[in-house]
């Protein structure tokens, strides 16, 4: 992780000096994480890909505005967050993602693919804010302070959303946690 940070910083410095190849390497390192984050947020593969494209283009265009290269991950995900919510607001002006009807989680033994789909459905049952908190913390490993910067809200709000989401997920995935998972 330390090596990666150092290398990211080096790549960012080179990209800021106009070395496009360095930015391409940086992009290839982060594209899967950004794409998965966007995919779980917007729930649509094509939209997530288009948004990923926009995110990396905007990041390149604004790379000189990044004060501290060490903050690149949070800065990148803030761009991704803004892009995703622009799309969500356009598609759903009421500002709230549709919540899929709750589906019971079978207690039968699950294969990894089934378990993945179960988790996916459990995430979809969360509100958009709760789901994003989980995505940033559980899957991207950001600190509370970084999440607060990405989401433009206080740390207390971040913790509230995350903890509520984790309680809901624990409840939804309880059958799995009780022995369904392999």
């Amino acid at each position, binding site marked *: 992780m330390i090596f990666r940070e150092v290398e990211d910083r080096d790549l960012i410095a080179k990209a800021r000096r106009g070395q496009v190849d360095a930015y391409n390497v940086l992009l290839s390192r982060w594209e899967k994480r950004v794409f998965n984050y966007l995919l779980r947020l917007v729930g649509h593969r094509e939209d997530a890909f288009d948004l990923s494209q926009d995110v990396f283009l905007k990041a390149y265009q604004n790379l000189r505005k990044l004060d501290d290269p060490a903050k690149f991950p949070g800065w990148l995900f803030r761009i991704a967050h803004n892009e995703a919510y622009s799309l969500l607001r356009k598609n759903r002006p009421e500002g709230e993602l549709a919540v899929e009807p709750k589906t019971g989680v079978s207690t039968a033994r699950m294969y990894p693919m089934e378990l993945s789909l179960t988790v996916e459905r459990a995430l979809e049952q969360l509100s958009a804010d709760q789901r994003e908190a989980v995505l940033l913390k559980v899957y991207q490993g950001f600190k509370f302070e970084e999440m607060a910067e990405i989401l433009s809200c206080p740390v207390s709000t971040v913790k509230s959303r995350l903890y509520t989401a984790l309680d809901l997920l624990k409840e939804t995935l309880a059958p799995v*946690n009780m022995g369904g998972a392999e």
Partner: protein
Amino acid sequence: MSCSSVDLKAYVYGEDAGPIEEHLRSCQSCREELERLRVNHTALMALEQVETPQRIAYISDKVFEPRWWQAIWRSGPAMGFASAALLAAAIFAHAFTRPATVINQPGAVNTAEIERQVNTRVDAAVTKAVSEAEARQAAMFAKNLDVVEKRFADKQQADMANVEQVVRYYEQQRSRLLVAANDARGGGQ
């Protein structure tokens, strides 16, 4: 349930949760809650990470190459050159289009104007030439007149001299005759 003073979720996810280890050793319910949170986290991590449907386009890809007008727009020196070229074009356009906006039929009016000017100049030149010729003729006439008058005066003077000579001759002849006559009369007495 866990104790409300202990932030187990922060602890599970690597945040600073304070001195929690000692509490866990003495609190069965918190240990069980911590275990549930870890199992839940393990289940969450089963979510498959999806590959991108295709590679995200690199900045160096053809699709991001600026169009020719974008390249010019982003280039300072080129923009300066383009501005100068546009300004020059505007000046030329203004210079060529301005007479057309003032005069409705520029071709006809220009020809008439030119014709008028040419006629004026020709008239002036002809008048000047005629006057010069007249002056030359007058001078020649005056000169000839002087010559003729001088000749006439000389001839007149010569004629007068001849007349006086003739008159003197005849007076001498008359005097001689008178003398002869007187002599004749005096001898006959």
